[in-house]
């Protein structure tokens, strides 16, 4: 496992500023208690914990976040927000991280490429909400 190098330049990255602006959250308020991860309903399918995602953000490690599936498995259920002792709304931080990719016109879900049989039974509510979340 390679060592990561931290410096003030790395920590003043645009990426951290953008996350704070879009989410409206001070990610440094998170004291890494892990309660969000403990209660996350989609965590069983994630490769890194939600609390680890915000830790990576605190350290400016944008690439590691982008390499993981976690932010795309979030269901925006807001359980993390409800239980966080520091009042950090992690669901907004997750949204901000997704938007950094989506706003570059890189859709996570490509509606035109979804096969008919896959989506035939889905109700509008599912299609509308997932397109809202995963397309730019």
């Amino acid at each position: 496992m390679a060592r990561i190098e931290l410096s003030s330049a790395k920590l003043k990255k645009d990426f951290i500023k953008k996350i704070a602006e879009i989410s409206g959250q001070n990610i440094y308020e998170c004291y890494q208690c892990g309660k969000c991860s403990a209660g996350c309903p989609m965590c069983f399918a994630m490769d890194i914990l939600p609390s680890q995602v915000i830790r990576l953000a605190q350290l400016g490690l944008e690439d590691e976040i982008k390499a993981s599936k976690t932010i795309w498995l979030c269901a925006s259920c807001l359980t993390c927000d409800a239980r966080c002792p520091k009042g950090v709304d992690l669901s907004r931080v997750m949204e901000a991280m997704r938007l950094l990719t989506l706003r570059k016109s890189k859709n996570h879900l490509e509606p035109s490429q979804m096969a008919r049989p896959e989506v035939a039974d889905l109700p509008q509510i599912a299609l509308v909400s997932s397109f809202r979340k995963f397309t730019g």
Partner: protein
Amino acid sequence: MELSYYPGCTVKTRARNFEESAIAVMQTLGVTLAELPRWNCCGTVYSLADDDLIHHVAGVRNLMQVRNQGHSKIVTLCAFCYNTLHRANLVMKDQSDNRFGINSFMDEEKPYNGEVSVAHLLQVLRDDIGWEKIAARVTRPVNGIKIAVYYGCTLLRPQSAAVDNPENPVVLQNVVKACGATPVDFPFATECCGSFQVVSNREFVNERAYEITNSARKNGAELMLVSCPLCEFNLRQAQGKLKDKYPDFQAMPLLYFTQLMALAFGLSAGVNRFDLNSPETQVWLSQKQLMV
């Protein structure tokens, strides 16, 4: 009494059973749910980005329409619509900069300042009508049936939109009691079903459905009551696949809470549109002789 009613996309199509039973139940309670003319999509899912105003516009347009029609309150049935409209409304009420931005963009004759309140049907039942009046309308009490009530997320989170205590809600249990049945507590009542992940990660939603349904079974439930069309779909569509994957899995009948009320009120099955419920539900209803 007449209440302005916002249906949303899904209850008009896939979840007609939810809408028709709701309208009939409310009519019996003396309330006409008058559909808002020219409503549009609520704009679900509520955007969690601070700088994103465009995604609130759809919801705000609806709220303006409510106000322009002369109403001060809009009642929703779909939990997602409730959540989205309620929070878009709070933006217009509490965030002056964003209110100005959205009003300028929409450039309507009369700017919208949060004059309308957004309620969910459960709030109307609990706060405006009351459980006593509801119980008084019950002609066919659904006695002896153990029901697990499943809330999902959007009725309880965030706190600003919660219709009840987010960790220990009781409103659906009270619906069950008013109908004469027995509510069963289980630890997954407020846990997320996986929501829109069903589109691209169905197998994960199936796992969630397994945990939630199994927990309800383990705690003695024979029926699950739902309040959200997406929860209903997620739990329903998983059942076939779960039976294949987990030999111990028992399918669970699913009803919308308004369907239970319609049964208890003795309303005809026509309003319940059981044909839109899962096959397991229909089988269960016939076995219980509730298909009348």
